[in-house]
């Protein structure tokens, strides 16, 4: 027996001024299932709530409709009120006769019947409501940070400072990321490694942080609070515990290749540390080129190692671990500027990228900090910088603005003048985007020291008599211009890691058309993703500079910390639910689910005398966010959304169309 109580609110004159509340109450009393109707001046006030509690008890109400304001305003209030009277809170429904009725109409003869309809809808729905119970899930208070660049380091430090365990997974042999390759940073020109290396050391020495280098995430399953992660730690061929980082092995190694850290401008050995301040400060053997592995000979490093740390037999380790939250800080990479045939990168050695120039400027770089052009080692007198190479170009690259290039080019121009007094710098630009604290001033400084900014894109570059002829347009003059340059620096765009989509699939998060990970909301949820418990930090989400990356990393850390601050998570009970008896196992629902919350489940059941096994859809209530897309995709009508069931909505439709 259903016993519904309807509480019609006057909201002072807000409702009662336009809606004949008495009439609504009168009509409500006639609706099927309604056993009690009451009017209140202000239902949300303490006396109003008391009267609901009293009525629930006195009239043994098992459903409640509050005809008042928007559920977005007071649904929680009345649910709590009902719960305090012992009623399941999901048996309360609101009829919005204020925002959707009294406030938008002025004629009582129109507003009153509409209000009655609205109440009838709510009554029809609540009649089919069932008690729902939120479940709780425990939270594993360990965070996984994928990527050991400045974003990952910052996020890990912040989380660890709050007292939670963090694991950083980095695929390179050291943490530090792109920032470690930079010489100085804008707009303050402080030395990149001077501010980064202390943080790297902090992370390495923090008792709450574990750093896994040469490691990658292979698989992630589970859901917020309970991620199962499979990690692979590639063999370093060095016993890290024994190694003292004396470096003798490196000096004796006979094999070398282009150094990735120096952007191919210098070489490194087969046993190597990417740079002297690497963390962990242990060498790694590159098995692709090491003669012991390629030819079965050599083994010099093992012979010379005083502490016996070289271990050729080391094998990859696979770790299965549980984490409560994941921070993706996988970073970005540099656009392959070879796409610009007209600039001749790759054919003309003195056409280089911004990151390569960083290595040429850096005192730890292949030229010990002297800017020398790659072709003949001469000091360049005239350097041309070309902006937007690969960015703002949908023809050869990407349409987006890469954001950091304007500033790093201004920095390069300033550093060039510092390193080579009297050198001239030309910057071909289209717009200078210097929106940041002290950025415009920094750009102006680069102009004031004599950098010539030319507004226009360069059309082509060709070599002639030891110079590079750079042909562009000064669109402000409306004239073609030509510069005879010694060195050309292309401001290559920041682009997503090549394997970003693969990582996104592992994480169950979405990514945009370029491969940058998508945040849950571009304005209001910038570090969250569609998958609860997975957060974003740094350039994996889009191009950004160091200050922004660090800010975002700290923001992601806060999100992790606030998740860990609760001992368990309460889930929203308005989730999808499968009627296994109807489900045909077509799993169309899996395709539309944005949260990967639907899995295939094999069930065994008896059909007559036989036992049959078949597959059905199964909802992971930890992942389901209750959007209901699956219910429409389900052709069997087996999928339903608790709190918004098909039966409830159809009843609402019929109640309104009477």
């Amino acid at each position, binding site marked *: 027996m259903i016993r519904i109580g309807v509480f019609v609110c006057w909201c002072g004159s807000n409702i009662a001024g336009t809606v004949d509340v008495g009439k609504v109450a009168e009509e409500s009393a006639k609706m099927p299932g309604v056993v009690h109707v009451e009017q209140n001046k202000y239902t949300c006030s303490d006396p109003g709530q008391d009267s609901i509690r009293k009525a629930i008890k006195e009239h043994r109400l098992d459903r409640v409709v509050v005809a008042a304001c928007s559920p977005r305003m007071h649904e929680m209030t009345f649910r709590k009120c009902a719960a305090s009277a012992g009623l399941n809170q999901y048996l309360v429904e609101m009829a919005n006769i204020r*925002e959707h009725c009294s406030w938008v109409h002025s*004629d009582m003869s129109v507003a009153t019947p509409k209000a009655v309809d609205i109440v009838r809808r709510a009554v029809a729905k609540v009649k089919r409501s069932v008690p729902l119970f939120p479940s709780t899930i425990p939270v594993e208070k360990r965070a996984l940070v994928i990527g050991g660049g400045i974003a990952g380091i910052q996020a890990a430090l912040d989380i660890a400072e709050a007292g939670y365990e963090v694991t950083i997974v980095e695929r390179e042999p050291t943490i530090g990321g792109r920032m470690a390759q930079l010489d100085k940073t804008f707009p303050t020109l402080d030395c990149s490694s001077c501010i980064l290396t202390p943080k790297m050391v902090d992370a390495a020495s923090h008792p709450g942080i574990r750093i896994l280098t040469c490691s990658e995430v292979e698989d992630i399953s589970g859901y917020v609070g309970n991620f199962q992660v499979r990690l692979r730690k590639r063999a370093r061929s060095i016993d890290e515990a024994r190694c003292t980082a004396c470096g003798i092995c490196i000096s004796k190694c006979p094999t070398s290749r282009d150094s990735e850290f120096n952007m191919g401008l210098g070489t490194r050995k087969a046993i190597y540390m990417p740079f002297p301040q690497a963390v962990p400060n242990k060498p790694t053997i590159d098995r692709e080129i090491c003669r012991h592995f390629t030819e079965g000979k050599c083994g010099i490093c093992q012979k010379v190692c005083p502490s016996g740390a070289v271990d050729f037999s080391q094998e990859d380790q696979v770790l299965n671990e549980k984490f409560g939250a994941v921070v993706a800080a996988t970073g970005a990479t540099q656009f392959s500027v070879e796409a610009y045939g007209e600039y001749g990168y790759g054919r003309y050695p003195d056409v280089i990228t911004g990151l390569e120039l960083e290595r040429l400027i850096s005192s730890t770089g292949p030229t010990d900090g002297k800017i020398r052009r790659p072709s003949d080692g001469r000091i360049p007198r005239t350097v041309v910088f070309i902006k937007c190479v690969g960015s703002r170009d949908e023809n050869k690259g990407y349409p987006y603005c890469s954001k950091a290039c304007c500033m790093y080019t201004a920095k390069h121009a300033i550093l060039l003048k510092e390193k080579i007094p009297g050198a001239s710098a030309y910057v071909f630009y289209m717009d200078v985007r210097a929106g940041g604290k002290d950025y415009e001033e920094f750009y102006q400084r680069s102009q004031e020291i004599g950098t010539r900014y030319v507004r226009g894109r360069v059309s082509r570059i060709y070599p002639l008599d030891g110079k590079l002829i750079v042909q562009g347009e000064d669109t402000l003059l409306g004239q073609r211009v030509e510069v005879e340059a010694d060195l050309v620096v292309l401001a290559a765009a920041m682009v997503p890691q090549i394997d970003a989509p693969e990582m996104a699939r592992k994480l169950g998060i979405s990514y945009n058309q370029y491969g940058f990970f998508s945040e849950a909301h571009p304005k209001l949820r910038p570090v969250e993703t569609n998958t609860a418990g997975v957060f974003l930090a740094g350039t994996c989400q889009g191009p950004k500079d160091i200050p922004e990356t660090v800010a975002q990393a700290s923001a992601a850390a806060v999100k992790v910390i606030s998740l860990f601050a609760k001992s368990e998570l309460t889930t929203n009970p308005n989730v999808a639910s499968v009627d296994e008896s109807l489900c045909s196992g077509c799993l169309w629902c899996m395709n539309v689910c944005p949260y990967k919350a639907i899995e295939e489940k094999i069930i065994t059941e008896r059909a007559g005398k036989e036992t049959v096994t078949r597959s059905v859809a199964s909802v992971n209530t930890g992942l389901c966010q209750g959007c209901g897309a699956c219910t429409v995709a389900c052709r069997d009508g087996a999928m339903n959304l608790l709190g*918004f069931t098909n039966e409830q909505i159809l009843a609402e439709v019929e109640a309104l169309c009477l």
Partner: protein
Amino acid sequence: MSLDWQPKIVGFTCNWCSYAGADLAGTSRMSYPASVRIIRVPCSGRINPVFVIRAFQRGADGVLVAGCHPGDCHYSTGNMYARRRFQVARRFMEYLGMDPARLEIHWISASEGQKFQEVIRNMTDRIRAMGPNRKMREIL
């Protein structure tokens, strides 16, 4: 058709954008015809075309489906599914002998109270010009 006749429009709105947009129209006291009755669903992707067809069967003169703007869906892709589904649903309505023009789909964000008002006003005018949904009641 008399001008007093008030068509009956069933509006399905997603909880996050369009329902909030309707709320905003209310709090800003933007008046519009009393033709629309709203059913709140979590996402436009939850709206089964069956609900719409049932509304017409039961005599609704118009049906409004409203969700977040494409790209702004709270559940990331729900409104995309809605958009595709209702393109197909329109064809199906034609097949059933229903007038697909009585079904309108609009993207109304939580900040677009004014747009909600305009949508209801214009839609009411259009439905009014079409007259009551007698045919469907007769057919089904």
